[in-house]
């Protein structure tokens, strides 16, 4: 397995060495450590080889980790690269600012090897997911008849390059970082394409991604609220994370999405593809007393709610919420 190329930024020399030693123990040897944001930006600009991920200390003098995260995200090549913030327990209030600046995840000091291992496994999964998407894009550009790399029907995949589209894993992670009040303010809504499997069989993988990308765009246009984020979870299931009060009429939303999809009916027909059949689920939210397991299952419940559908799922949905 290719070693992840990581840039670690921390102004404390002792912590840098602890981090580097622990990363080496976990099998990550391609780590560059720098003591400041200025040094990090210099390394990034002067290095022809891209980094696979970043570990940024939040509290640093002059330019802090949150601002550094923002500046890295502003570079087009690093728009989706995993950025993990490193923070002390006293700095957790800054984690939200970091996520707003584009951070993917965080872990706390003092370093816990198990936590670091888990965070880096997520980083690797995100890197692999992005690489799959890039491989497919390369094949599209090469005008191959059929892409050589395979995507799996049930695998999460970023289907469109938009600032509201996130990796499914990143969305799951983000929920686990929210405090109870913040979580209480969020709701997850599932959108499922009930005939996605049929489309997957009828087209090549590039065509299937285009199919999903079009659906994602229609759904995004129907969502009149902001901000929201969307992820494709696999199997034609999308999940949207938004404010708890944003969608008060899921039936109306479903009708709007279906109308938007119907406007593309002739196009789908010309491509030999079925017009997507969309079901929207009832918004699912966590209670203020939610335990970690319930938070982890929030997105799954949103998917299930969509799969059951609004008409059939009303009474069942009440039990889950």
């Amino acid at each position, binding site marked *: 397995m290719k070693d992840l190329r990581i840039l670690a930024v921390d102004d*404390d*020399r*002792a*912590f840098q*060495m*602890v981090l580097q*030693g*622990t990363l*080496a*123990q976990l099998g990550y040897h391609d780590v560059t450590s720098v003591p400041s944001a200025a040094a990090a930006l210099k390394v990034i600009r002067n290095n022809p080889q891209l980094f696979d991920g970043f570990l940024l200390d939040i*509290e640093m003098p002059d330019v802090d980790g949150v601002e550094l995260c923002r500046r890295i995200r502003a570079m087009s090549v690093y728009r989706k690269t995993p950025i993990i913030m490193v923070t*002390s*327990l*006293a700095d957790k209030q800054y984690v939200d600012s970091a996520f707003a600046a584009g951070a993917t995840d965080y872990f706390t*000091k*003092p*370093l816990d090897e198990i936590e670091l291992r888990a965070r880096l496994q997520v980083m690797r999964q995100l890197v692999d997911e992005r690489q799959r998407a890039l491989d497919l894009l390369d094949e599209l550009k090469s005008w191959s008849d059929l892409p050589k790399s395979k995507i799996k029907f049930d695998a999460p995949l970023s289907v469109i390059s938009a600032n509201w589209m996130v990796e499914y894993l990143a969305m799951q992670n983000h929920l686990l970082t929210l405090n109870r009040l913040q979580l209480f303010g969020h709701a997850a809504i599932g959108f499922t394409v009930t005939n996605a499997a049929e489309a997957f069989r009828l087209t090549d993988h590039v065509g299937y991604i285009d199919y999903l990308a079009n659906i994602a765009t229609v759904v995004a246009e129907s969502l009149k609220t902001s901000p929201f984020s969307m992820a494709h979870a696999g199997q034609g299931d999308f999940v949207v994370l938004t404010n708890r009060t944003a969608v008060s009429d899921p039936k109306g939303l479903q009708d709007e999405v279906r109308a938007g999809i119907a406007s593309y009916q002739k196009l789908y027909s010309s491509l030999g593809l079925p017009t997507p059949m969309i079901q929207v689920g009832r918004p699912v939210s966590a209670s203020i007393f939610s335990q970690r397991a319930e938070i982890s299952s929030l997105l799954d419940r949103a998917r299930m709610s969509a799969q059951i559908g609004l008409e059939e799922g009303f009474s069942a949905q009440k039990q889950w919420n």
Partner: protein
Amino acid sequence: MDTSAARKLPAGVPDVLQAAHQVFINLTTDRILRIEVLTQAVHKGEDAVSALTEIAQIAHKIAGVAGTLGYPQIGDSARAVEQKLKADIAAGDPLRNWDSLSTEIEDLLDALEDLL
């Protein structure tokens, strides 16, 4: 006091962290001295916010590694000092708990001196 000789790693700390441990020990003398200077400045009535902010920053660095390097109580103590200082500074009343905090800082310095 000579800190140049390698100090033995505490039990349970992996060998790969030997170098990091030594750097931490080497930094400790300067940090003790700096905290003492800053504490004196506060006692003299000099710029409290600036001095206490810097003490919090030093405590933050100590808290970030002490536990991993085999000194969890020092880490906890440093974190408590950091959190309380930051809370008082953020509240606009940096000397609100100075009497009790200066005692906690003294205890932290004593613990750090025991490492040398």
